[in-house]
């Protein structure tokens, strides 16, 4: 196992979620969520299927609407004001389980679209930035291909590069490796580790416990729409407090 990342965390608050609740119809998915993320923190969220992990991080960039409580991202409160939402979305990058690349656009176009139209950066400059990040995720030679021509791992790295091209201050990952074959998981995790080394603020839903140990400075365990336990990774894995956490850990680490 690689060395544990030692990175400092600033006191500046990046994300603040306060007594946030969300319902799907009458189903109470998220219950009284309180969460503060400082700039530079790397947080791993885990928990059983259906516990509301995806919903939580999707609320943070307003892909889902929350009903009560507050979410403040980068100093801007998420309300139904579309201007605020668009601003926050351009500051927060999101990587999906199923990549969601745009199949009708080349890799380069996937990466330059938002910088050109949202950030109003000249095309030339946007392409340079895109190539820079494609090099960072180690696939500059695929720039002119289409998503359908790449492997899953490559597609996910393009998806990460696409988000990075907007130069976000926060990155959200929703199970970025769980649709990948084992040999591709590593290349994506390596990219994410590099990102963490650069000091990116990250919230990552994942069941890759090795990754959590190495990169995270905090692990959050969710069940039934609530945050059940959070702790430093060492403590969290060695010495879980709640019974639900113990059960969950025994299930995913047990065999």
């Amino acid at each position: 196992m690689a060395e544990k990342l030692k990175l400092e965390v600033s006191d500046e608050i990046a994300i603040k979620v306060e007594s946030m609740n969300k319902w799907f119809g009458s189903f109470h998915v998220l219950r009284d969520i309180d969460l503060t993320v400082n700039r530079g923190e790397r947080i791993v969220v885990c928990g059983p299927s259906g516990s509301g992990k995806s919903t939580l991080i999707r609320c943070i960039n307003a892909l889902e609407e929350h009903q009560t409580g507050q979410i403040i991202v980068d100093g801007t409160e998420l309300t139904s004001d579309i201007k605020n939402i668009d601003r926050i979305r351009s500051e927060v990058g999101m990587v999906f389980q199923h990549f969601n690349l745009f199949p009708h656009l080349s890799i380069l176009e996937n990466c330059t679209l938002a910088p050109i139209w949202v950030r109003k950066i000249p095309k030339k400059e946007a392409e340079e930035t895109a190539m820079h990040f494609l090099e960072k995720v180690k696939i500059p030679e695929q720039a002119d291909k289409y998503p359908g021509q790449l492997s899953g791992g490559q597609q996910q790295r393009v998806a990460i590069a696409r988000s990075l091209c907007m130069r976000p201050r926060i990155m959200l990952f929703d199970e970025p490796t769980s649709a990948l074959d084992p040999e591709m998981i590593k290349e994506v995790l390596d990219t994410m580790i590099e990102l963490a080394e650069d000091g990116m603020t990250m919230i990552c839903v994942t069941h890759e416990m090795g990754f959590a140990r190495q990169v995270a400075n905090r692990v959050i365990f969710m069940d039934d729409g609530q945050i059940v336990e959070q702790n430093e990774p060492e403590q969290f894995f060695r010495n879980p407090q709640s019974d639900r956490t113990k059960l969950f850990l025994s299930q995913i680490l047990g065999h």
Partner: protein
Amino acid sequence: MSGESNSFVRKEMISERIPPAAERGLFKWVRENLFSSVFNTIMTFVSLWFIYSIVVAAAPWFLNGIWDAKTIRECYDLLDGKSGACFAVLNERFPQLIYGFKYPSSEYWRPNLASILLLFALAPILFRKLPRRLLAFSAVYPFLAFWLIWGGSILTSVSAFLGCVIAIVCYRRFSSRSFAIAVLISLIAANVWWIIGGYIVDLNDSVLALKDVPSRDLGGFMLNLLLGTIAVCLSIPLGIALALGRQSGMPIIKWICVFFIEFIRGVPLITLLFVANVILAFFFPPGTSLDLILRVLIMMTFFNAAYIAEVVRGGLAALSKGQYEAADSIGLDYTQSMRFIILPQALKISIPGIVNVSVGMLKDTTLVSIISMFDLVGMIRGPILSSTDWNGVYWELFGAAAAIFFVICFSVSKYSQWLERQLETDRR
């Protein structure tokens, strides 16, 4: 087991050879496709016999065809009892079939020029590889064509064009504030200009004036082409807008679109055309009336747009939710995500459906003959067949009409298949 006997090293490489004769070219194709089994062989011979009988029966009719005669009786005299077609009617009534019977013959060059220019205007829209600057001509073309076909002073067209330019400029200027305000301001600005422009045009109505041709004088295939082209071109954007409106989160817009689509789809086109012909006139104050062609065009556009909206809705539904979310998550606003992400993919899926509906619309333009407009079919059924000269030449006339429509619809369908392949290679 000794390694010696199992090992093998090739001394000479085998050079390339052509396949045996039985596995090559035409011979192979015939054997595999026509005579692959007893049943297929029988079917092949039955079909060959069938084709042969049709050709033998029809050939004399075509070959003996008379191309030069003044009346049907002259045709019969020339045929002298043999079976044969009387294509002379196409020859003699050619201008009527194409331009209708009232369009002044000295002005035929105008619709001719307009149709040739139409090809140039459509080219950059249909073929993405052509330089984008050519689109400027496509934008000017509708106004140019209006002037050519209806005549009058060119100032009318110029003024209408400037009104549109003003509207677009205003929209660009204000669109960053709010979509609704931008649309409102550009509508007001354009209308103010059109009122001012109207006075200017009235004062100088002889600038580059062509002879006026009123709408009721348009006819023949020109009318079909005109109605079909305009209705299809207008209904595609309207249909897309309706499909998006139907998906909209704003209930009022959504319900308006749903009502519009369901209402139009629930009514036969011919009913809408009767409405255009008779009933719409009641809605206008006496003395003012909307041009009949314009009324028909509105109905056809609405009709086609409602169907296209449903086709596009299918395309939109076929996209995964992830595409919408990815577009949102990188910060694109609604317009941008529709323009760059959603519509390009949804429309590509919708191409076969849109073409299907639009080819249907092209053919349905012949229905206007029922509300006594003299389009190609109207001309045949009316002035030509009822004249004593050509009473009774059904096959030749309707066959010619069918052939014209077939050529056009077949080309459209071929184009759409080509376009689909083009967009497909982009992906793989």
